[in-house]
């Protein structure tokens, strides 16, 4: 095995281990597990995006988040997605700016499937935290990443960048 493959293999093992821990914690402490993993993800998102250039442009901010993930070897590939009947990629609503995202390769999903754990649990919430942290650094605004559909080969999510002064709870 090459050094890179060995590093990836150990990362994969760690993720599988995390999947098992998260599932156990969910059983033990219930809903609070989501809060813990959200905060862990948020801290990670803030830390990894510390040096990223600030912007008000949502698509540019997403591109920066994608780059941060890639540079840190995080297997969380996502892309903005526009359905045929949606006039613009970004929709302006009363709460803020909304964009739909498709997540393809995801180290969390793959880890959960390995041992048959459920999706949409606390580890998936860590991703929400990661985005919230990174986007707070980059755009200076709060955000909500809602899982609309957790699929076997891809997940579909709605990202809301909140207007200053508004708060939507996921």
């Amino acid at each position: 095995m090459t050094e890179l493959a060995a590093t990836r293999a150990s990362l994969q093992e760690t993720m599988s281990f995390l999947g098992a821990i998260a599932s156990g914690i969910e059983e033990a402490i219930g809903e609070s597990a989501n809060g813990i993993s959200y905060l862990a993800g948020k801290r990670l998102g803030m830390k990894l995006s510390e040096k990223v250039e600030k912007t008000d442009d949502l698509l540019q901010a997403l591109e920066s988040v994608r780059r941060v993930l890639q540079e840190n070897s995080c297997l969380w590939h996502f892309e903005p997605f526009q359905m045929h009947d949606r006039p613009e990629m970004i929709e302006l609503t009363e709460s803020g700016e909304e964009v739909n995202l498709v997540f393809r390769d995801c180290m969390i999903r793959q880890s959960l499937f390995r041992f048959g754990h459920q999706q949409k649990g606390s580890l998936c919430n860590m991703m929400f935290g990661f985005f919230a942290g990174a986007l707070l650094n980059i755009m200076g605004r709060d955000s909500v990443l809602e899982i609309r559909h957790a699929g076997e080969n891809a997940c579909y999510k709605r990202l809301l960048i909140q207007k200053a002064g508004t708060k939507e709870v996921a």
Partner: protein
Amino acid sequence: MVEIQVHEDGCRGCRMCVDICPTTVFEYDEEKRICVVRHQEDCIACLSCAYLCPSGALAHANFHTVKNFYRDLAFCEKMERFL
């Protein structure tokens, strides 16, 4: 773009694919009593419909399959010697 094929003879019209699809790719054809693909361009290749279809009547092509576990990568390297 993802291509979806519905095997009309196999479809039993249960509408499970219509209900599960997050991007409303399918529609139910009342006359034929089967599902039909209406907005193939909206398919995100989550494959939930294919997993759920009780008749195995749905097939997808031209999509990105998520990466497998890296342990499988090592396994594949070993297997390559025999292939």
